[in-house]
């Protein structure tokens, strides 16, 4: 018996078909499970085990290895502050503290409402635009402590259905690693990557 709705099952079938062996689909399917439940639940991991024909323990072994599989309740907006060397040199610790202070959520935790989660993360590959912050893996570069506070207030009050990297960069960002002239019209809808094969990419204004 599957817990996943019909459209997610169809998506899972397509994901599995992209690999020569079913087990290889475990990572994308874990994201799919997160998109169903908001984070990785025991039931979600059991469902992934059925799809990949391995045991739930084997799925859990994979899920626990990677930082992006959130096995605890996670907010609708996951704020990830990079604090690796290049960001640290340009004041990322102050950005993290400002985000924690404004949200009232210490890194590694989620607020009571389930709206915001805050974490500090290792290098996001945005070192030329340090300090870098991501919301649901959508990037903002050149963030100051004050802009970090504004980002928190915006997420709490505006509660965008889709978080878009270009919109957030315009509102809260500064210098970027490199110029990118094209505005993307899509974004992320939860604390997991927005990626076409997972069906997690939404246009702004939809949903």
């Amino acid at each position, binding site marked *: 018996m599957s817990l996943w709705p019909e459209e997610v099952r169809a998506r899972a079938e397509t994901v599995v078909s992209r*690999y*020569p*062996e079913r*087990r*290889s*689909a*475990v*990572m*994308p399917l874990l994201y799919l499970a997160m998109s169903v439940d908001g984070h990785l639940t025991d039931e979600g991991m059991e469902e992934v085990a059925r799809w*990949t024909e*391995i045991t739930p323990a084997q799925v859990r*072994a*994979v899920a626990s*290895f*990677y*930082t*992006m*599989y959130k096995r605890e309740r996670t907010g609708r907006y996951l704020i*990830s502050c990079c*604090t*690796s*060397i*290049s960001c*640290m*040199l*340009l004041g990322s*610790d102050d950005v*993290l503290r400002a985000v924690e202070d404004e949200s009232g959520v*210490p*890194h*590694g935790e989620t607020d009571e409402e389930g709206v915001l989660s805050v974490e*500090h*993360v*290792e*290098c996001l*590959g*945005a*070192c*030329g635009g*340090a300090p870098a912050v*991501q919301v649901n*893996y*959508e*990037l903002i570069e050149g963030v100051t402590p004050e802009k970090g506070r504004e980002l928190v207030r915006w997420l709490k009050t505006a509660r965008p259905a889709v978080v878009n*990297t270009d919109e957030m960069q315009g509102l809260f960002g500064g*210098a970027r*690693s*490199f110029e*990118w*002239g*094209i505005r*993307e019209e*899509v974004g*992320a809808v939860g604390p997991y*990557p*927005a*990626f*076409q*094969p*997972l069906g997690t990419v939404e246009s702004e204004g939809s949903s």
Partner: protein
Amino acid sequence: MTLLLTKRMNDHPQSSHTIDVYEQTDGYSQARRSLQMSRDELVELVKESGLLGRGGAAFSAGLKWSFLAADRPAYLVVNADESEPGTFKDRQLLERDPHQLLEGVIIASFANEVNHAFIYVRGEYSKPARRVQDAVDEAYAAGYLGKGIFGSDYDLDVTVHLGGGAYICGEETALINSLEGLRGEPRLKPPYFPAVKGLYMKPTIVNNVETLANLPHVLALGAGGYRELAHETDTGTFMTSVSGHVNKPGNYELSHGITWRELIYDIAGGIRDGNELKAWIPGGASAPWFVPDRHLELDITKDATAAAGSMLGSGAVVVMDATTCMVAAAERIVRFFSHESCGQCTPCREGTTWLEMILRRIDEGQGREVDMGLLLDVSDGISVGLAWPPKMTTICPLGPSAVSPIKALQDYFRDEVMDHVRFGGCWKDRASRSSSAEKTEGDRQAARRSLPTTERGSGGRHPEMTA
């Protein structure tokens, strides 16, 4: 200055990622041409060109291909798991010219008799992954991927795979495990050389994004033409990501043969606020550090960097000015490796954790006279003799990489470490304490406590250890 990899995105800033612009600018012509060549011709051409792997190891790409075992099916895996601190060049290549990568994928796949290639993009790179997936979809629609590509009888499928946020998956055997749906733990070599026993125990080529993006240019210029862009043994151009305390951080595609002074002061615009340069990391967080009085006039080449005891690695240059506390910088890099250690090998799992804790207590003003010796002792347990390139005690080079900042502290900044120990913390904190009377010791400790620590470390707790 010749631009190869970034020419199209410079010329077409709004549209370099589309298949239309790619084809208008000669795109896919080399992939078509490669299908008329034999596997041996292609491997020989790439070998002749001197193209070196750009993921960090700087190994001859053609030679790597020539090791591919005869067993089939063979696989190509594109390593787009860019996560070495300081590195962001592949992100630009993925976002802004994804078809250039795909053309390289087609050439490499055909040369290695591969019918299924995987592009492993790090999970946090959701936008680059979307751009690559769009490009893959466009290429399928055009008949450049799928069955009988370009009207030939050659089939090629490409799957874009998202990682899960583990730096170690940039190590090729860990990446293969991850792609098989396992924990991303590196495999022992031998026997698990990817070219022999790789993905699904089949012959597998793992190439970095920048390496593959070079292939259309190698074919277009010919081995000789590509070699002509050389300085000593480095051929073609190279991408470098410059970050930290420079006025113009960013990705630069450069010709070989410039010096570090030219890179830092001319190309990257010099140090912010006219500050003095204190040190820089020449090739990503794993590389031993350079300092101005010894290394500023060196050529940026593989050999010159190796002779000076470091590496060009991932091409990432992290610049630190005179305001930087070297203990804090070293702690931050060691924390990275401690966090990213997969935990298989004891020297790395335990060693990086200890290095992080010892550095943190020095940084917090709780250091002891013996701590510098202790750091070296623990480092020696991970990387024997702190030699470069490292003498390995571990399956992969992650553990030894964590030792690079310790070696820098020992070689260049020992006085600064001992100053932390003797005066109970950082000179920067002492300076700000004397200037702001209202800041109490309690405030300072409260600020310290909220500093991020790794989840599995013991935070600021002191290791019970005596020398």
